[in-house]
């Protein structure tokens, strides 16, 4: 693996590969500003093989990789940490849009972990259904539950709660330096505490360029089905209004029926984008 030191170097590597290889497929959705940031943090690496270019983002516990590949290539992947990869494709076009990449991953020993699909909650669609439950939210507050913007000192506790819930896995988390964590927009982490100050539930989202990306929401087992999930949604959409965010995007596993039902129940819409998630060397 060789380090990518800058966005210019990254562009050069990718462009040269594409010039030398016709009909490449890719699952690379890194944005230029992300590449610049990750390269600056010395977290970006690459490997090149005949017909395949792999770019690794070091996420500490694992690599999040993307690749460019031509049909029939046989690359080797790093083995020192698990490698996570997502193939995104549009409705009904898995074979055409992710076919070559899928074959490369299967041949390399990757295991498909999940298929997820994209849902989007537009403020104008979702907020009216949440306004209806405002009375219940107030009743919860009278009983000592409070939903607050989590402070940076509690981010790790929230992360632990979410990971322990099993709703998402470490592969879905993007590692952040202390500096990055301290610059998270207040309210991206929301947490619900009971009257004793115990953390009962949380919701995490990312905010980039006025768009929100839902990472996860989790409730500790003893408070499941008590209304804390709708309470968090109510506060999340109020937060969106305050930040002039029009919609929040999330990805849900196809087999996560409760989450699908919940999101559609409050007015989220299904988008025509799917993502297969693949993992190599999970221990």
């Amino acid at each position, binding site marked *: 693996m060789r380090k990518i030191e800058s966005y210019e170097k990254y562009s050069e590597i990718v462009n040269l590969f594409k010039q030398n290889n016709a009909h490449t497929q890719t699952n690379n959705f890194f944005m230029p500003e992300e590449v610049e940031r990750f390269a600056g943090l010395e977290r970006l690496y690459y490997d090149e093989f005949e017909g395949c270019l792999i770019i690794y983002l070091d996420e500490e516990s694992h690599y999040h990789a993307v690749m460019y590949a031509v049909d029939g290539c046989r690359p080797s992947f790093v083995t020192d940490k698990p490698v996570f990869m997502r193939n995104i494709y549009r409705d009904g076009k898995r074979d055409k849009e992710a076919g070559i990449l899928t074959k490369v991953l299967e041949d390399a020993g990757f295991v498909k972990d999940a298929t997820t699909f994209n849902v989007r909650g537009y403020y104008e669609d979702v907020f009216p259904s949440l306004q*209806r*439950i405002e*009375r*219940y939210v107030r*009743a*919860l507050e*009278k*009983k000592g*539950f409070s939903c607050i913007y989590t402070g940076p000192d509690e981010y790790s506790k929230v992360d632990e709660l979410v990971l322990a819930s099993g709703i998402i896995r470490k592969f879905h988390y993007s590692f952040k330096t202390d500096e990055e964590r301290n610059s998270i927009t207040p309210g991206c982490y929301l947490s619900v505490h009971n009257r004793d100050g115990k953390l009962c539930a949380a919701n995490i989202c990312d905010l980039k360029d006025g768009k929100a990306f839902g990472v996860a929401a989790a*409730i500790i087992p003893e408070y*499941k*089905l*008590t*209304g*804390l*999930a*709708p309470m968090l*949604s109510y506060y999340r959409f109020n937060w969106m209004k305050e930040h002039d965010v029009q919609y929040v995007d999330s990805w849900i596993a196809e087999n996560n*029926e*409760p989450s699908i*039902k*919940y999101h559609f*129940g*409050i007015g989220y819409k299904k988008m025509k984008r799917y993502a297969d998630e693949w993992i190599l060397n999970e221990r």
Partner: protein
Amino acid sequence: MKEKIIEVMNKANPNIGDDFELDLMKEELIDSLEIVNIVMDLEDAFNIEIDPELVIPENFNTMNNILQLIESIVG
């Protein structure tokens, strides 16, 4: 009282039907959002207030348990 409960429950999810023994959680007929809506509709239907501390799965997993909860509040 039973008819009103059936009406409220089926407004939340028309697949619930009228079986008071049916395990609504096990059959995944209600989720946390529906519970909140059911609580508010029951409050309106019976002109009562349901303490959020009583909103626990054990009180809402069957219509029989919901009936008992309402009876205990109405007195």
